[in-house]
C-alpha cells in the first residue's frame, strides 16, 4: 500500500496551465510566509543576542577616593565599581586600576590588563615594574613595554581631581586590536 502511494506521488501529473500557475503561487506564498515567520522570530532574537555590539558606554566619571588617600610616588591597586553594572553582577561589577599619585594634583591610572592577552599585571614595588603572570610581559613604571610579548604599552585611563575627589573615567577592558 505504501509502495503504491509512493509510486503515485512520484508519477508525473498531468497539469493544466491553471493548475501549474496555482501550484507555483502556493509554493511561492508558502516560502514567503516561512521567510516572514523566520524574520518575525529571528530578527528580535539575533538583535537581543548581539546587542552588546552596539551598547554604548556612558561616559561616566567614577570617584575612587580622596587625594590624601594616596601617597605621592606610590602605585597602588584601586578597586572601581562599575556604575552601569547590571543588578545581578555581584563581585563582577568590580574592577581595578593601578593608580599612581605623581604630584599634589596629578595622577596616572594604568589599566590592569596586559596588552598581550588581558591578564592582570602586578606592580612590583621594589623593581618598579609591572609584570604579567600569563606570558611574562614586563612594563616599566611609565607603562612602556620592558620585555616579553606585549605589543603596546599599558593603557591609561583619564583621571581628574574634582570637588576634592579623585575621579577616573569608567574602566573598560581595553582590547588590543593589533592586526
Amino acid at each position, binding site marked *: 500500500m505504501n509502495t503504491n502511494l509512493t509510486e503515485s506521488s512520484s508519477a508525473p501529473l498531468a497539469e493544466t496551465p491553471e493548475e501549474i500557475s496555482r501550484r507555483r503561487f502556493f509554493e511561492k506564498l508558502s516560502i514567503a510566509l516561512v521567510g516572514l515567520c523566520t524574520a518575525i522570530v529571528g530578527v528580535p532574537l539575533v538583535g537581543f543576542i548581539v546587542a552588546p555590539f552596539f551598547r554604548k558606554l556612558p561616559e561616566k566619571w567614577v570617584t575612587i577616593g580622596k587625594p590624601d588617600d594616596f601617597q605621592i610616588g606610590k602605585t597602588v591597586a584601586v578597586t572601581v565599581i562599575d556604575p552601569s*553594572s547590571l543588578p545581578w553582577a555581584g563581585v563582577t561589577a568590580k574592577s581595578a586600576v593601578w593608580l599612581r599619585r605623581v604630584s599634589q594634583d596629578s595622577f596616572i591610572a594604568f589599566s590592569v590588563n596586559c596588552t598581550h592577552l588581558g*591578564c592582570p599585571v*602586578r606592580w612590583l614595588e621594589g623593581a618598579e615594574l609591572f609584570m604579567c603572570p*600569563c606570558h611574562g610581559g614586563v612594563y616599566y613604571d611609565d607603562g612602556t613595554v620592558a620585555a616579553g*610579548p606585549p605589543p603596546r604599552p599599558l593603557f591609561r585611563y583619564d583621571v581628574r581631581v574634582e570637588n576634592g575627589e579623585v575621579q577616573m573615567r569608567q574602566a573598560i577592558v581595553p582590547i*588590543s586590536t593589533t592586526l
Partner: protein
Amino acid sequence: MIKIFKIVWQWLDDRLGISVLLSPMKHIAPQDSKWWYVFGSATLVAFIVQVASGVALAFSYISSSSQAYETLLFITNNAPFGRFLRGLHYYGASAMVLMIGAHMAQTFLFGAYKFPREMTWTTGILLLAFTLGMGFTGQLLRWDSTAAWSVVVAAEQAGRIPIIGDWVARFILGGNTIGGATLSRFFAIHVFVLPGIMFAFIGLHLWLVLRHGISEPPVAGKPVDPATYRAEYEELLKKSGKPFWPDLAWRDVIVVTGLIIAIAVAAFFVGPPALDKPPDPSILAADPRPDWYLLWYFALLALIPAKIEGYVMIGFPILIGLLLLFVPIWNHKGERAASRRPWAIAVVCLSVIMIGGLWWEGQQSPWSPNFEAQPLSEKVVGATSGPVFKGGQLFHDKGCLNCHLIQGLGGRRGPDLTYIADTLTRDNMVIRIVNGGTNMPAFGPSLKPGELDDLVAFLETRKRPLRPQDRSPIAENQIFQ
C-alpha cells in the same frame, strides 16, 4: 506474568516501532573491525556522561555572575554527590577529548576518511571543534577568578581578528567589561547552543556511518578505487560481515565500561578541579590558564615570536581546521594502509609530540615570572653583611629573583644565574643590568647609587666551586696567603 509482559511489549513495539528504531544496531559490519574500532563508541558514551552529569549539575547551578560561585561551593561541599558529579563532568570532558583524539588518529591512520566516507570525517572534525568549544565554555562556567580572567583572555584573543575583532570581543564579554551579562552568555552557549548543534551533528555522523558502513581494516597493496570500492565493500559484507550487535559491539561495551569506571574513580578519589578565588576582577593575584586540553595552545602563544603572534593566534586554528576539513578532498583514494603511508604516521606522531611537548611547556610555564619567590637565605647568599649580603637582598627586592634561578630558587623566565660569574665579567654584568637585554628590562634608571655595586658584588660570588683536582698548588698558596 511473562505472557503479559510479552503482550505489552508487542503492543508498544507495534505502536512505537522500537525494534525498527534499534535495527541499525544490527547493521552488518566487517568482522575484522576489532579493538581499533572502539574509540567512536567511547567518545559517544563520554558525551552521554557529559549530558547526564551536566543536566544533574544544572539542578543546583545558578548561571548568575553574582551567585554561580556560591552555588559551585554548595555543589562541591554540601550537596550529596555534588563533588562526585563535578568530578564526573570534568573527567568526562577529559575522556571525551582523549577519545575523540584517539578516534581521529585511528581513522586517519586507517585511511578511513577516504572514499566514500569523506563527509563522515568532515562531520567528525566539526564535532572535535564543538567539543573543544564545550571544554572552553565549560571551564568558564567554573566561575572563579581563573574563569573570569579567562573570559578577558578570550576577548583579547578575539580582538585580534581583523575588522570585526572588537565586536566579537564585546560579544564575548557581554559588554565593555566583565559583568552581569558575561556568565549567562556562556551558560546559554554551553548548555543550549553547542549541545543542540552537537546532537544534530552526532546524528548526522552516525547516519553517515550507517550509510557508508564501518570501514574495513586496510590491507597494504589494496588501494581505494572510487569506481569499484562500493561493490567490493558489499561483496566483503556478504562474504564475512557480522551484525554489529552483538557480534562486534561487545568490545565497545568492554572499553566503554572501563572508561566509565576510570572516570568515576578519578571523580571519586581525585575530585573536581579546586575552585580558585571568587570571580572578582579587582583581585589581581590571578594566573589564568586553560584546562589541559587547551594548555598547549596557551604555551604556543608564549613561545612564538611576538611579531607573528597576532597572525598565529588567528591563522593557526583556521589553518589547522581547514587542513583537517579538506584532508579527504585531496586525498580521497589510493592506499589506506599506514604501512604504505609513512607521511600519515609522521603527521600523527609529530602532532602528538607537538601537542604533548607544548602541554609540558604549558605545565612548567618557564616564561612566567615566579611571584612566590622568597628572599634568599644567608646560606645561599653566602654572607651576613656587606655588599654581597645587600646585593643578595636586592636580587630579591628588585625582582631579579622572579625571573632568574639561584641554586634552584626563583623563576625560570631568564637564564639560571647560579654560576653567572663563570661566564660574565664584572663589566658585562654592569652593562646587562643597566641596559637590559633580550627580554630583560633595563634596571639602570631604577637603581639607587651603590645598589648596582652591591648587586654585582653578589653576582660575582656566583661561581662554580673548585673541585680539588682543579686547584693548582699556586692557587692553593694564593688562597692561604
